């Protein structure tokens, strides 16, 4: 197995993600890596700081709504001689990768955190265990968690080409709510400030946003905070939300259910503030404070 395609769609910090994909491909023994970049007309193109990739073909979809799994599969269906594919694990790839794999009678390997040739490690049971899988197939269809693949950025002479693509499947999906803010992206942020049930209200949760802004951090949340309506779902961190690994994670009023810990346990430094000294998050936190979270936020803001 030597020919690899990395698949990428518009996201924040694309160059970081492409480096992670190239790193994963080289760990699989790739000798040649090509990229497929699927974007809409209005999305800016890739910046040419790319490592270890021969060529990137940009497929420009003539539409304005978000890219769908069907469209990614249509693009891939039009590329002859596709071999192994590697992409980032996110909700879009969670849609298309298993579907594409099934149509090709391939068992995909998703949420991979380590690779050595044809063996892959992935977390199971909410990260309580790690399984090692050996791929017995000629092709590999892989999604990775990018924070586990950190490669040095070597500027290389990647060539680029553009293809206009009119998909048969037009998207009829509308985004009901999304947070438009200038704060860093949760998945790739170096610092994350996160809030849980302990914030007590949607109004109080605004303090988390303010502190995040001051620290130039992304905003995260526990499932409880999202369920209670303090913040929208795209901020949820955990087994079923986003899995993150920032350098610094600060949790306010989060007790630390196992499902939440699954989303943060690979962070650099975990800091927890909770009024309950028995909160499970203190078992994981590097630095913990038992007391009033509002006092801490107030002290950090002034």
């Amino acid at each position: 197995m030597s020919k690899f395609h990395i698949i990428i769609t518009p996201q924040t910090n694309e160059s970081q993600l492409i480096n992670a994909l190239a790193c994963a491909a080289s760990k699989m023994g790739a000798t040649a890596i090509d990229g497929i970049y699927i974007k809409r007309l209005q999305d800016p193109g890739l910046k040419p700081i790319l490592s270890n990739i021969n060529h990137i073909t940009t497929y420009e979809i003539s539409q304005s709504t978000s890219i769908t799994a069907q469209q990614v599969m249509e693009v891939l269906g039009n590329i002859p001689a596709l071999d192994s594919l590697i992409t980032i694990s996110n909700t879009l790839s969670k849609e298309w990768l298993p579907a594409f794999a099934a149509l090709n009678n391939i068992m995909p390997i998703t949420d991979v955190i380590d690779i050595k040739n044809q063996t892959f490690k992935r977390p199971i049971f909410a990260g309580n265990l790690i399984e090692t899988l050996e791929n017995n197939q000629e092709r590999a269809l892989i999604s990775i968690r990018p924070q586990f693949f950190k490669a040095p950025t070597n500027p290389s002479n990647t060539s680029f080409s553009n293809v206009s693509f009119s998909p048969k499947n037009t998207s009829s999906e509308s985004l009901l709510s999304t947070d438009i803010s200038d704060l860093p992206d949760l998945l790739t942020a170096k610092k994350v400030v996160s809030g849980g049930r302990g914030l007590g209200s949607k109004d109080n949760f605004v303090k988390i946003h303010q502190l995040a802004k001051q620290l130039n951090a992304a905003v995260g949340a526990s499932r409880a905070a999202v369920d209670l309506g303090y913040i929208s779902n795209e901020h949820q961190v955990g087994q079923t939300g986003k899995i993150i690994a920032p350098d610094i994670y600060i949790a306010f009023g989060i007790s630390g259910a196992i499902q939440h810990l699954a989303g943060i346990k690979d962070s650099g430094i975990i800091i927890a503030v909770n009024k309950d000294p028995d909160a499970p998050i203190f078992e994981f936190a590097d630095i913990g404070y038992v007391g009033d979270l509002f006092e801490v936020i107030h002290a950090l803001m002034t």
Partner: protein
Amino acid sequence: MKILVCLKKTLDYNVNPQIAPDQQSIVETGVKMSTNPFCEIALEAAIQLHENNPTIETHALCIGPESHQDILKRALAMGAHHAHLLKCEHPLSTLEKAQLLKTYIENHPYDLVLMGKQSIDQDHNHIPQMLGALLNWDTGLFCSKIMLNNDHLTVEREIDEGLCQRNIMLPCILSSDLRLNQPRFISLPKIIQAKNKPVAIIQADSLLKGTGPKLTRTKLELPPARKKGTTTNDLSEFLSQLKEVLK
């Protein structure tokens, strides 16, 4: 209208999984097993749909050995009308399960297939997508709201960018997210009544094409442990530590 809800039997969510001596499998004997929580949410969604529309019939299905009938009896107690076990003695991959379900559904037509978005043991998040592709049905994943209109459904889905909404024509496949509903409590009399309800058993082994394992699990291990840090209730001490980290 016929709804099929697919259920997986997993380790109970309160059980801490233990690695068996072979270093490749999980200890399952003597451990509490339950319906995968995401699957139970899918079942609750189907029951709510048929409670509002008596022409809807809900069928629960599970793939596995005969001992998996217990979660089907539980589904009947919860409110499913019929239960089917696709009997298979050996473990199957997500792809094999999707292929098996495709064959089953081609022979037993349904209008809507509801499934959990992932199982809490393997955390795969594969089968609804795979089944949708194999049947060439429209697929709505990670649903946190399902509304049934005349000939179509409107679903709200939780994706990385936020909450999105779309209309889906039947037949289709939907996968449930945690915020879709809170599964109902099942009373003891209902559990006792359901003990006598039948579970149809279909031999699944004959429906499977044997091709050898595409993936082999060679090892199971614990993740590197995080070491416990320091906890204080002295605010000024904590703040000075925190400010040091944030430098």
